[in-house]
């Protein structure tokens, strides 16, 4: 069980290393893309190196997902406490609305207020990724068997102690699934940031669309897809170390 987990972590590390080597070697990309698209004069987006683009992309996702987690998980916890229970319907409605509202529309509305660049993109990504985190936090906490809480309180735990010692460890897996979904959505959605100058892997894609250059689009899309797979596997590994409910009880 745990040996299997260690092996998965090692595999992931190897994959990450391969990914870094791949994006650091612009020469390789150029050779491959040139052989695929001999008609194009340029096959590598000239604005920045691939490494910089990936780094910008990771920053965008990390900041917006970070905010999503910092706000989403406590929000989910709060509405399952007696003090916040009345707000549960409102919070679920608002977060659902956040996801149905297209990120492009958020950008369009935010740019006049916040200007171009990072801020409006981060807000759009935050709103878009909030729902899975909040929803899974609520679902995870609600799935904690009531008799375990009865035991926790009956033994003398305070509400806070029960939350940190029992409820959160037991719901961690479900919460992490929400985080994973949110992060994956954000890696894809962060592309639109390029429209308003936030950089990232969206830049070559936008440029490729404008200039009708397929090589640029692949330069942006392929690393983004690999990034999503890596993040997905990383978070999936993290989840499996909290798999109490499924393989125990």
């Amino acid at each position, binding site marked *: 069980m745990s040996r299997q987990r260690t092996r998965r972590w090692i595999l992931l590390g190897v994959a990450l290393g391969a990914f870094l080597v791949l994006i650091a070697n612009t020469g390789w990309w150029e050779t491959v893309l040139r052989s695929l698209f001999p008609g194009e004069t340029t096959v590598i987006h000239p604005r920045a190196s691939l490494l910089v683009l990936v780094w910008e992309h990771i920053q965008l996702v990390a900041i917006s997902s970070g905010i999503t987690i910092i706000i989403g998980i406590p929000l989910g916890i709060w509405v399952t406490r007696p003090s916040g229970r009345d707000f549960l319907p409102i919070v679920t409605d608002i977060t659902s609305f956040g996801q149905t509202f297209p990120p492009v529309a958020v950008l369009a509305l935010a740019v006049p207020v916040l200007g171009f660049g990072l801020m409006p993109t981060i807000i759009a990504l935050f709103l878009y990724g909030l729902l899975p985190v909040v929803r899974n936090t609520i679902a995870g906490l609600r799935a904690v068997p009531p008799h375990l809480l009865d035991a926790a309180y009956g*033994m*003398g735990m305070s509400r806070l102690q029960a939350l940190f010692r029992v409820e959160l460890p037991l719901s961690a897996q479900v919460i992490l699934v929400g985080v994973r979904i949110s992060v994956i959505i954000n890696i894809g959605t962060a592309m639109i940031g390029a429209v308003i100058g936030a950089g990232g892997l969206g830049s070559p894609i936008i440029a490729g669309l404008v200039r009708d250059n397929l090589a640029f689009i692949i330069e942006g899309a392929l690393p983004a897809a690999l990034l999503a797979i890596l993040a997905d596997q990383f978070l999936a590994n993290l989840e499996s170390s909290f798999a109490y409910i499924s393989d125990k009880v």
Partner: protein
Amino acid sequence: MIRLHQITRRYEETIAVNGLSLEIEKGQICVLIGRSGCGKTTTLRMINRLIEPTSGRIFIDGRDTASIDAEKLRLSIGYAIQSVGLFPHMTVFDNIAVVPQLLHWEKKRIARRVEELLELVGLKPAEYARKYPSKLSGGEAQRIGVARALAADPPIMLMDEPFGAVDPLTRERLQAQFIHIQQEVKKTILLVTHDLDEAIRLSDRIAIMESGRLVQYDSPEVMLSRPRNKFVRDFVGADRALKRLSRIGIKNFIKPAATVNVNRPVKQVIASAGSYRWLWVVDDNQRLIGWVDRSTLAQSASIKEAMDEGDTGEISLSDSATLREALSRMLGLGFKCIPVIDDGQRLVGEVALGDIEAATTEEEDRQ
């Protein structure tokens, strides 16, 4: 000592517990019993304030529990429930250590205590401490549950059907062990059950409840011989005479048995056998190994040859057994008397059917 004074708990329209007063003496086991929905669990949960009474007061050693911080109160009361409620993300060690950790005990002291408790409930610390609850059998989990409730050595224990979720055989073993543990730790225990046999077996006093009210509060012997009203009579059942036998140990009914050493010459035995038809055969260490019929003895060269080698575990009783077990065993085997052995398999005597009969009629006459 726990004292409940005129406790009432209302839920909008319904009254779960209605003006209940109860006193549990220090070091005693009080069993709350009744049909489901009679308010027994609500009563239990009001003592550690998981449920607050609508009116009435509860005193522990003279202190009103309403004046004690609820969490502090609960830390000083052991709590074991039917579903056990072991935390699946913690090892057995960490589960037992929960309350000591909440009380900020030193690490070494906690480790020592956990080991002690695992030994107390009969589980090897080296084998079980690192296990997760998912790897335990039902009976093991229940025992860990009891160990966890005992962790910080609370003077009071509340137990809600602590042996409910296991098969009857395991339950009986756990109950026997529980009686043994209680003799050692001497806690004041309030135990909720709907199993009358369990109540009779474990309790010093039984409290029977019906629709939120206390119907009768007496020792099991009194409850069985003098039920207060029709409800209690129906509850304890028509076989209450038989049930009462399970409260009487066989110790006082053991009589000297006719025994013979397996190595004694046959002739000598026949001469001294008197009027006995059966003789229990023992070895040099007084251990029971079988029995012999006097009529077959005459034709045999040695006792060994004439002897019926029974499974001694099957045909004998332990000296801690009850009259009910003795009776049941005799009926099952078709014996009119049954040998009794001690922990070392040594024969200490026998119990006769006639004496059990006499014991029951004697009890009836006394009333």
